[in-house]
């Protein structure tokens, strides 16, 4: 798998381009491991801390699986193990975490 190269004008443009590639790449995947291993997902993680508000904003729009990226970048995990797999609850936990830090 290779990443399409673009000339992003901003972090947000780069993020949106990678996010689009990732969604396309995992459109039929059930495997969370495969989703997280996708090169576009890994590239988003490499964008680091500045991308966290963008991830949270995307999560607010739709509970897409950004949890592993958020965890990898921040080193935190506000999701209780009892909520593992409950995607709306996982999204809520991360959104609350973001609001507490004024990232949303």
């Amino acid at each position, binding site marked *: 798998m290779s990443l399409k190269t673009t000339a992003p004008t901003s972090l947000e443009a780069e993020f949106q381009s990678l996010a689009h590639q990732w969604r396309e790449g995992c*459109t039929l*995947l059930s495997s*969370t*491991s495969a989703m997280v291993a996708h090169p576009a997902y890994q590239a988003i993680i490499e964008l680091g801390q500045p991308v966290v508000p963008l991830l949270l904003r995307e999560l607010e729009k*739709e509970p*897409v*699986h950004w949890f592993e990226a958020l965890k990898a970048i921040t080193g935190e995990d506000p999701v209780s193990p009892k909520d*593992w797999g409950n*995607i709306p609850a996982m999204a809520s936990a991360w959104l609350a975490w973001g609001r507490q830090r004024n990232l949303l």
Partner: protein
Amino acid sequence: MPVPFHERVRHLLPSLIAENHRITSPASWQYNCIAWVVGKTDSWWWPIPGRFWPAWVAREETLEAFIAALATEGFSPCLSPELELGLEKIALYSMGSIPTHAARQLLNGWWTSKLGPNFDIEHSDLAAVAGGIYGTSAVFSSRAITDH
């Protein structure tokens, strides 16, 4: 005119054609194929930290662990995917030894699959979603049909 779904995913599921499937739900990121085959639409099952996996079943991406996870919902391994009166069957797909997908047999002999975060579909046979990113149907489990 929008491109039909099976044409958009031809590079991923080359055997899916208009005649062998129908879309039966909206897309959803809230559940996946493993949850769907055991009748759940409120959780995403995968054996990694952060996703649901039945307690006491090994969190490992092996067919053995997936068979054990299905067993927690009353399914036991069986030899054939053939339609049998009174039995509900699941087919686990794999690429090599790595599980990739699951489908559940319907009473009419068709199968139902949740395609990752995409739609649920009904497909005429197991081959309809084989041969691409899901690999092949590798093992089968069944349970008696009751009022689950």
